[in-house]
C-alpha cells in the first residue's frame, strides 16, 4: 500500500495512543461497569453540592476520526480519537438522549443477568413497550446503544446485543460452529447460502476449513444468489460473502475471521459502480465512524475488482443512469475522507464528473452466465485495486 499521507507519516507510530476503543468484556465485567456508573451518579446526587453527572460520550463524528495507515500490515483503518461530546440532563436538547442511555443500560443489565443475547430489533420492541415516550424508532434505539458503548467503552456485544443475522456465505468453505456437531458445507447450502450468525462469540469459535483461492464480497443479494445458483464457486475456487447491502458488524467480523484464518486469500469486492457501492467496500476495508470504537478491529485488505470505470466499455450506454442526490452526498463525503486512496478517488471523480452510475446487472446484457466469466477474467488479469 502506497504511503501517501505526506506530513502525517511521523504521527503514524504514535496515533495508536490516542485510539479510543471499546473493550470486549465478559458479562460480569460489563455489569460491573454499569454498576459503577450508577454509584457514581448517586454519589454526585447526594454530595454536599448535589448535581446530576454529565455523560461524556466519545465523539462519533468525522471531526474525531483518525486514520491509521497500515505500515507493517497492509490494512488501514479508521478509528476514533479522544474527543467527547457531553450529554447532560440539565440541557433540554440532550435530556431525552441522556435518559435513553440509562434506559438502555438498564435493559442490557437485565439481559446480561439472564445470560441472554438479543438483537437490536428485539431490544427496540422491549423498549417500545416499556417506555414508548422515549423510544419511537429503531434508529433511536441504535443510537442510544452506541451511546452506551461510547460511555462504558465496551463493545456492543459485551452488552448482550447480538448483531442481526444478515450476512450470507456460500462456497468452498466448511464451518464447524459447535464442537461435536457436523460441520456445515457452504457449497451445499442451496442457492441461498448459509446465514452468518449474529453471535460474535460463536463466530469467534467456529472452526473453518477451506480450499478456496479467493474470497469474493458481493454487494447485492441478487448477484450473490445468481453466482451461487450457477455454482460459480466451483469454476473459480472461492467463497462468496454478502451483507445484502451495508455491512453489519457480524459480517465484517466473519470476513475478518476468515482472512485471519486464511491470510493468503485475496479479498475481492464486487460492487455497483456508484458512490454507495464504493462506500460499502470502504466500510469492509476501513471500518466505520458510527461504530468506530469497535469496527476498526475488523478492517480487512479488500480490493476492488468491479464494477469499475474501465468496465464501462463492456456495458451498453443505456445502462448508465444519472446519479441521485444521495449518491452525490456520499461521493462528497468519501472524497473528503482522509483515508481514501488515489485510484479510488479517480473512480469517484469519474462518477461525479460524468454524473453517471451503473449496476452490476448491466453485465447481463452479455448473457446470464457472463458474470462468472467476467470475474474470472479480471482475476486472471490481476485487474483489481
Amino acid at each position, binding site marked *: 500500500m502506497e504511503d501517501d499521507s505526506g506530513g502525517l507519516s511521523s504521527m503514524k507510530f504514535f496515533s495508536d495512543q490516542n485510539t479510543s476503543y471499546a473493550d470486549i468484556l465478559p458479562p460480569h465485567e460489563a455489569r460491573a461497569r454499569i454498576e459503577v456508573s450508577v454509584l457514581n451518579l448517586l454519589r454526585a446526587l447526594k454530595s454536599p453540592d448535589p448535581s446530576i453527572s454529565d455523560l461524556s460520550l466519545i465523539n462519533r463524528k468525522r471531526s474525531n476520526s483518525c486514520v491509521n495507515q497500515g505500515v507493517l500490515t497492509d490494512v488501514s483503518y479508521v478509528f476514533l480519537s479522544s474527543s467527547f461530546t457531553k450529554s447532560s440532563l440539565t440541557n433540554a436538547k440532550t435530556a431525552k438522549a441522556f435518559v435513553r442511555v440509562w434506559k438502555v443500560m*438498564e435493559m442490557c443489565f437485565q439481559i446480561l443477568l439472564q445470560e441472554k443475547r438479543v438483537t437490536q430489533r428485539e431490544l427496540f420492541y422491549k423498549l417500545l413497550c416499556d417506555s414508548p415516550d422515549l423510544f419511537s424508532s429503531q434508529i433511536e434505539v441504535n443510537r442510544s446503544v452506541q451511546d452506551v458503548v461510547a460511555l462504558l467503552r465496551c463493545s456492543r456485544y459485551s452488552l448482550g446485543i447480538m448483531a442481526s443475522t444478515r450476512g450470507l456465505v456460500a462456497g468452498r468453505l466448511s464451518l464447524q460452529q459447535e464442537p461435536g456437531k457436523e460441520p456445515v458445507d457452504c457449497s451445499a447450502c442451496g442457492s441461498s447460502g448459509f446465514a452468518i450468525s449474529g453471535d460474535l462469540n460463536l463466530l469467534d469459535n467456529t472452526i473453518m476449513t477451506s480450499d478456496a483461492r479467493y474470497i469474493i464480497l458481493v454487494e447485492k443479494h441478487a448477484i450473490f444468489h445468481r453466482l451461487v445458483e450457477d455454482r460459480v464457486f466451483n469454476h473459480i475456487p472461492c467463497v462468496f460473502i454478502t451483507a445484502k447491502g451495508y455491512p453489519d458488524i457480524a459480517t465484517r467480523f466473519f470476513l475478518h475471521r476468515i482472512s485471519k484464518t486464511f491470510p493468503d486469500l485475496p479479498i475481492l469486492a464486487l460492487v455497483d459502480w456508484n458512490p454507495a457501492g464504493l462506500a460499502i467496500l470502504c466500510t469492509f476495508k476501513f471500518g466505520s465512524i458510527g461504530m468506530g470504537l469497535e469496527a476498526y478491529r475488523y478492517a480487512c485488505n479488500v480490493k476492488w475488482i468491479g464494477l469499475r470505470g474501465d468496465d464501462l466499455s463492456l456495458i451498453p450506454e443505456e445502462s448508465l443512469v444519472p446519479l441521485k442526490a444521495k449518491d452525490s452526498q456520499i461521493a462528497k463525503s468519501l472524497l473528503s475522507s482522509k483515508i481514501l486512496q488515489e485510484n479510488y478517488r479517480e473512480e469517484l471523480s469519474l462518477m461525479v464528473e460524468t454524473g453517471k452510475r451503473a449496476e452490476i446487472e448491466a453485465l447481463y446484457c452479455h448473457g446470464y452466465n457472463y458474470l462468472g466469466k467476467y470475474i474470472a477474467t479480471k482475476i486472471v488479469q490481476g485487474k483489481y485495486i
Partner: protein
Amino acid sequence: MILPSHLFRVISLSLLLYRKLNLSSSLNWYDLSTVADTGIGSNLGEFQDLRCPRELNGAKIWVAGFSDDEVFCYHINLDEYISNKRIKRQPSQPKSGANFSGTEVSLSVSGSMDLLVPPIITFFQKVCLLFRILNVTMDLMVKPGASPGIQTQYVFVVNADETPCFTASNLQQLTSGLKDYVLRHGNCLDMMCDHCFSDREHLKVGSVTACHDENRKRPGGTMEVVIVISDLLETTRQCSRSRDGKTEVLYFDNFSPSPIPQVALSALQKIDWKSYGLILASVNEQDGHVFLEWENFPSYVQIHIALHWYHNKYPTRQKTEPGINLVKNGIKSALDNLKAKHEGFLLSSHARKICSYVPDLARSLAGLIFSSTDIDFQGDCLSVLGFQPQEVEREAVEDYIQRKIVAVIGMNESKTQKDQEAAPFLFFEGESETSYFEDEEIEGEYYPSSLE
C-alpha cells in the same frame, strides 16, 4: 417598629355599626364606634391627616394613655382643613380609678348599609392579616336600629393554632397571617376549609425581607414579600370557593391595608414570570383589589401574594413609597425562596420539560439497583441514598431518587449563569470537549443507514 412587651395579651377591637334614625332626612346616618384596648393610646397627630369621603359627618375621639388620670376627648371636624381648627378639645372625663389605656373613635357616616358593610369587611379581612402582629381579634356588629332586632356579627379571629409567638419577626407574622387567610378562603370562614386542605402542608411558602437603607432622598424602608401557593386537591368539588386561578395581591403600607401603589403594579409587570413557568396575561384592578391573571393556569392551584412596605423608623410623617427595584427584587427573591424550599414548584417551562423525563430516569436507576445480584452494590447504593438496606421498598427508593433529581434541577435554575458549574462527568474527564451531542443523523458515515 418596636412594640411594647405587653402586647402578647389578646386584644379585641370591636366595631359597632348601628343606624341612628333621623326622620328629617332621607339619608340614613350610622355611628361607627370603635373600642380599642391597644395599650398605647393613639397619638392625636395620627388623626390630623384623616381624610374621609364626604359622607362622613365628623369624628369624636377619646384617648387615654396608661399613665393619664383622665380620658381626653376630641372632636374632629372633617370638613375643616385648617389644621389648628380641625381638632377641638372637648371636656375630659375622669378615669375613676380604672387602669386602662386605649383609643375610641366614633364616626358619623351617611350611606346605605349594603354599600358600607362590604368595604368594611374587606378592610378588616386585610387588617386581620396584619394585626396578628398585635394579636388582635376583631368583630363587626351591624345593628339596624337602636332597639334590639336583627343584628349581624362578623368575627375576624386570629387562628389560635398557629399563632406565632410575640417574639416572631414581622415577616413570620405576615407569613402566618397570609397562610391563615388562604386556608380560610380570604378570611371568609372561621376555620381552615376542610374540603380544600387536609392539612396546612398543602401550602408552599416563600418569603423575603428586603431593605432600603436610609439616604438623603428618603428614609429607610423595608419591603416584606410573602408568597403562598396552595395546591388544592383536585378532587374537591364540595367547596364553593371560586377556582379561577387568579392571584390576589394584598398590599400593606405601614401595617395597614392600602391600595396598591403604581410602583408595585409596575414591578409586578416587570417580573420575568416565564422563568418561573408562569405566563402573565394581565394585571387587573377591581374595587381596590388587584388580581393577576395567568395564561394556561391549572384551576386547582392558587398563588397568593402579600406585599408589606413600612418605614424603618416609625412613626413618620413622610409618605414614602418603595422604589420599583426594591419591590421587583423583593418579589423575585420571594419566588426564588419558594422555589428553593419546595422542589418542583415554579419551575420554568424548560425545567418542567426536563422534569417530565425524570420519572423514567428514576425508574431505570431503581431498576438497576434492585435487579443487581451483587449485594454489596445494592448496599452501597442504598446507603449512599440514606436508606437502611434491610427494609426498603423499591417504590420508596424510586420516589426518593425522583424527588432528589427534581430538586437538583430546581436548584440549578435558581443559580445565576455564572454560579452554575458544569456537573462532574460520570467517569472520564473529557479532554477536549466539543459541543453538546446533537440529536441528528451521524455525520461522516459513508452510507447513512441503520447500524446493524
